[in-house]
């Protein structure tokens, strides 16, 4: 599936929720079920520090694709991260660079990404793109 297709799938999943509580309960569930990044990868160099919560992001380049692992100390943040990982991990650098991640707005989570919330999510997306840029440069 392309990134766009997975985005569409996520939007459809969230369309089932009529109540904000159901939506957040789903995110909490996702947040709890994400494989936790190993303590050894929770390095300061992988830490994206926000005022609100911490996010760790680890990237690995394998067979022309980039694989991400991430974690956060806040479970809702982690739930949103898991959606991003589902979407972007295992993609090529170019696919990642081209993704505009419309689904975040579509499922009503854009307020989680405003820079003022400073919760590390926006920085995480930037960091994912930077990794993609770096790996695509190495490839060339």
């Amino acid at each position, binding site marked *: 599936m392309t990134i766009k297709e997975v985005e569409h799938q996520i939007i459809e999943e969230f369309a089932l929720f009529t109540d*904000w509580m159901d939506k957040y309960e789903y995110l909490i569930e996702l947040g709890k079920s994400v494989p936790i990044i190993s303590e050894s990868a929770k390095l300061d160099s992988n830490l994206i520090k926000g005022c*609100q919560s911490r996010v760790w992001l680890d990237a690995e380049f394998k067979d022309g694709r980039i694989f991400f692992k991430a974690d956060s100390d806040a479970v809702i*943040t982690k739930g949103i991260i898991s959606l991003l990982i589902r979407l972007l991990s295992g993609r090529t650098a170019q696919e990642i660079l081209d993704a505009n991640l419309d689904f975040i707005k579509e499922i009503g989570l854009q307020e989680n990404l405003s820079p003022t919330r400073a919760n590390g999510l926006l920085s995480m997306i930037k960091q994912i793109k930077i990794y993609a840029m770096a790996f695509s440069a190495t490839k060339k």
Partner: protein
Amino acid sequence: MFLRYNWQLCFVNFGVIKLLKMKNRSSILNIRSFFPALDQTINGKKLIYLDNGATSQKPISVIELVNEMNSGINGNIHRAVHELSAKTTALYEGARDKVMNFVNASCREEIIFTGGTTASINLVAFSFSRDILKPGHSILISGGEHHSNIVPWQMACERSGATLRVLPLDDNGCWRMDLLDKLLDSSVKIVSVAHISNILGVINPIEEVIKKAHSLNIPVLIDGAQGIVHSKVDVQKLGCDFYAFSGHKMYGPTGIGVLYGKYNLLEKISPFMGGGDMIESVNFAKTTYAPPPLKFEAGTPNFIGAAALGAAVDFISEIDVEQASINEKEITQYMLKELKAIESITLYGNSPNKIPLFSFTVKGAHPTDLALLMDNMGVALRSGQMCSEPVMDRFCVESMLRASFAVYNTIEEAQQFIESLKKAIKMLA
């Protein structure tokens, strides 16, 4: 005569505020009716605004004065002879008189308008680093300070070669007064501490610190950002040399604040910024400065903000202090009882001298998640490091959740807060 403030200038019916003096429980509900922002829904729920430690909502008298001034009474102060300038000057200088009376300064020249508490502290820190501080000198702050009472002093240290000393907190978030004598010696050239902590809500023993510092001729600056809202401040009685506070936390507008300073000190220290209005005479060889307070008010000041701060002072003066204090105590008791009853909660700042401000963590639930869920229930809270990383480090946490109450908050809101909190904790469990 010119400087006398005339309410009729601003077409607003301030007489209604008199209604606030009602000696019963409904007076809090009555106070609420003056704050349009409180009457709204957030995410489809009735707003419960408990982030007053960050900023308060504004009463209608403040809002309307800002509107009246922007819509008509607008002319730059001090400089022109035209009617609008005379009116705004009267409002601006009238507000200075109101603030002088409010904090009981000994003269109006001791009240300097700034952009807020941060600007006030930076002003003093800059001037001290320029005029007084030298290598070998030190500055004493406490371990419970807001970043705005830490960073300006670190910058002053960088400029002057002085060092920063910190009076530590105990496990309850109170100052380690037993260490004060050791930290206060003749190398200390200024003590700068908070009246009330913005995280711990503890009312600090500033009187004792001022007394001890003064016995060594050390001046004291009090960060009154929270103190001005929750206590009756009398700067002459306190004896502090500087008292800094913001307008926006005390029902006034943003972008305006005050630095109270003892006149003889204000005369001595250098201005922070140069520009118009702060000078006596300018020529290319040498410029002489105007006396305080104008020496510290370079450029066009926020005269609308200052005038509206005057309206906020009027508003506070009309509040039935006794009733408000009963309400605050009731809320504090209720909150402490309920928060302590939830096993997973750790509360920071345990002192009998506490304002209704509660910072805590919940085992197994991140403050950001809780704040996000409770926002969806209409409850506005603060989560994060609350502009005080050193306090987070002291209590070995990354962040906290804070509920802070103001004069218009009701016990019913406290009850709804507890209910929402329990619901959010359950969702995250």
